[in-house]
């Protein structure tokens, strides 16, 4: 028996609409992320897709989505193949679990989860990529990650309003 408190207002996004949203996010990750970059900060459309998928279908689906979308991101990055898959699997699971346990389901909470999740993902990715070098980690993390997380949350909010209608 679980102690989690189920949300009072469960997500009602249809799989078809979410699939469309994922396709848009994948295309945007390939085409729009570089043009939309401001300094070192860039929106992470793949993580946006993962977050709303995990928040909609919870931990198990979040983990599977995270693995698939992480492989996609790894294929785009072309280094440390499997690192994004690992990080996003964990985060997909975590985001799904948070939805299962958190009572609040407001858009603001979703955006906070999105920004926080992106920040955690950057910690995982940059930490692993830095291979234990604190200088290498802080050189990127403190300059890019908070802004990228905020940027991703803003873009994610817009995408959610445009595609998911919530």
């Amino acid at each position: 028996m679980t102690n989690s408190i189920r949300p009072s207002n469960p997500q009602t996004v249809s799989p078809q609409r979410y699939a469309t949203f994922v396709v848009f996010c994948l295309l945007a990750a390939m085409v729009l992320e570089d043009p939309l970059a401001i300094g070192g900060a860039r929106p992470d459309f793949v993580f946006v897709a993962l977050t709303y998928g995990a928040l909609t279908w919870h931990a198990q689906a979040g983990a599977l989505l995270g693995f698939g979308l992480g492989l996609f991101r790894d294929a785009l990055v072309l280094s440390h193949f499997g690192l994004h898959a690992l990080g996003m699997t964990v985060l997909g699971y975590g985001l799904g679990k948070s939805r299962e346990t958190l009572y609040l389901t407001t858009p603001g909470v979703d955006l906070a989860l999105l920004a926080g999740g992106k920040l955690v993902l950057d910690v995982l990715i940059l930490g692993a990529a830095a291979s234990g070098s604190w200088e290498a980690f802080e050189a990127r993390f403190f300059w890019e990650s908070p802004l990228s997380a905020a940027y991703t949350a803003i873009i994610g909010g817009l995408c959610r309003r445009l595609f998911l209608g919530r």
Partner: protein
Amino acid sequence: MPLLPPDRRAEAVVIACAAASLVLLALPDSRQDSLARSVNHVVTLPVSRVREVFSGYLRLRTENANLRRQLQEARIELSDSDIVRAQNQELSALLDFADHLPVHLTAARVISRDFATTPSVMIVDAGGTDNVTAGLPVVTDEGLVGKVVSVGPGTSEVMLYTHPDFSASALLLGGDHLEYGIVRPSAVGRLQLLLPLRARSEPGDRIVTSGYGGVFPRGIPIGQVTASQEDQRLGLQQIDLVEPVVDLGSLTAVFVLMRGSSPDGSAGDDLRLFWPGYAHPPMAGERLGGRASAVGGDSVTPAEADGDSL
């Protein structure tokens, strides 16, 4: 019995996925790189194809626009060069003509005309300041255009040979005879030559001004006979249809024939002009086909000029 309880499936999935990720991460760099590139190729292929097609379309569109612009410019240049070439030929002919005619000519450009089907008047940019006066003949290197009817300081109004009030004393140059008559405008830009009934004329006979009447000197080409017919109303005269030598529709520059500027100081009955392709019309008492007397030092006989024998 299920392998895992339902509330542990998520954990099992995340562990499996994480394990798979770790396996991928543990692969040798070269294997990892080739795997990443393969997946990257599969993932980005549709987008790169679309991007190629789109960028190709944009490039072709830009190239098409540039080529269209270049074609337009080339057409304009070609058109300009054609116009310039035509103007050059026309002005060269006029200059050559002015150099060879033994009278003073004032060149003028056509600056306005009526745009009726058959124009009857036009304005030229030579006027009183150029010593142009009313009544002076207006010609081109091809022949008679009309005469000046009113003069302003810098412009003059020219009555064209198509004007209903226009008439000129004319001389028909037959094969072995001359006929005198009057040229008047007919319908649709043509002329008609009124001759006595006994007169002989044939299609192709040339018509020049006769020099009688005091306006036009003798020898300005007017046109060629195209047909002869009898006056249907009275039967008292012969009417020849005349095709004018000057096309008024394409006229851009003319000459005003200045009075009293010929070498002998006259521009009346006793002045005979040599026109390219035309013989000096013989004066009264002279035999047609005989050697014409030259007016001015540079005049030549018709036979010497163009082999035309009259």
